[in-house]
């Protein structure tokens, strides 16, 4: 969906237009839910946070500034913060079991439909997938689990210096990868 349409729809949402809100919901809910599910790992809790995210869109639409980024990025930023808050509230630590292996998670790719929006996330997904397992792991724990570098060191049993080095290298790699696209 072109961003100009998003802006118009967000303005209508700010005026209480339910139909505009549902249009944006239908357009972006799968992206938001993918993020909340990735962070929380439990479908029911993820749905609750996805719902909270869209309720915030409904109540705070007037606060969206298009010049600061796309609506999708705004929604995903809200979703990540809300999900990490929920994760901290539950005082859960990431479980590095087979079912929640951050390495495996990046290897699951559904069949695509070839739309431009899908091609965009696919290219980003492949960039993460191209990282080494150690680099993906620190990115996963830092960004999707909200852990600090010292917490990652504790969880993985690595020296703090190793965590810093790998996290720095992973980000540098992503930066170069995405910068080249």
């Amino acid at each position, binding site marked *: 969906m072109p961003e100009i349409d998003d802006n118009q729809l967000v303005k209508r949402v700010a005026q209480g237009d339910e139909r505009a809100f549902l249009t944006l919901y239908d357009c972006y809910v*799968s992206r938001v*839910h993918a993020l909340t599910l990735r962070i929380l790992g439990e479908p029911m809790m993820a749905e609750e946070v996805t719902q909270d995210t869209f309720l915030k869109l409904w109540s705070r639409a007037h606060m969206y500034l298009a010049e600061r980024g796309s609506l999708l990025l705004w929604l995903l930023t809200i979703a990540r913060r809300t999900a990490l808050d929920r994760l901290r509230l539950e005082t859960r630590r990431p479980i590095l079991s087979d079912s929640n292996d951050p390495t495996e998670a990046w290897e699951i790719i*559904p069949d695509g439909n070839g739309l431009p929006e899908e091609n965009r996330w696919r290219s980003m997904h492949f960039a993460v997938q191209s990282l080494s397992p150690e680099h993906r792991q620190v990115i996963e724990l830092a960004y999707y689990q909200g*852990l600090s570098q010292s917490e990652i060191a504790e969880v993985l049993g690595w020296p703090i210096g190793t965590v810093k080095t790998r996290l720095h290298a992973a980000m540098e790699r992503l930066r170069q990868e995405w910068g080249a696209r």
Partner: protein
Amino acid sequence: MTYYEHVPFRENIPAYALGALDAEDVGALEAHLQTCASCRDELAAYRAASDNLLMALPPQKPSAALRQRLQRRLPGAQKTVRPRLNWSIGRVAVGIAIVLLLALNVFSISQVRALQRQQTQLMDQMQNGQAALAMLSYSNTQAFPINAENVTGSLLLDKEYNNAVLILRGLPPVNDDQTYQVWLIAPNGERTNAGLLRPQIDQPFMSQAIYSTQDLVNFVGIGMTVEPAGGSDHPTGPQVFRVDY
């Protein structure tokens, strides 16, 4: 600032962009960022990378029910929801209390009215009794005995002051749709209404003042009949007694 002076801060920028920098290092980096444009540029580049991480996940559809739940929670959607009766235990209790209070109020009003009627009757009785006592104290008052089948008593008559009082004993009660009616009897036999009375339950005798706009001397006697409630223009029921004077 030399390149080497930037190094300790630059090493922390990727972690800061991810939100993973330990709290004790955040303050120093943020202070440095305020004064260093090149490090701010560096941060912007890493922020773009971390923003892309938000976009890098394959879409996942939630359940279809989520959309409906969300719609119900929207303030606009809530306005269109048909209001349902939501009777909590507290509201039911308040409702019952109101009904009980109303019933108690109606009962109290009926009790007050019954007491008022009883008080009026007692006042009438007292006035009649006082009138009878006053008449007995006058030397001109004449007493005529009443001896009928079911009732005995006296008629006190003061012709000078045109007053008369009936004192009756053993007057049986009448039905709700009946009343006793007193008549003044003219020499030609015509009857003139002189008032209604109902005997008081639990009272062995009762008194009734006779008020007339005409001189009592124009009549020759007083009689009583049983009439329909509200009284009649002329006697229609059985005679209870008659006393001539």
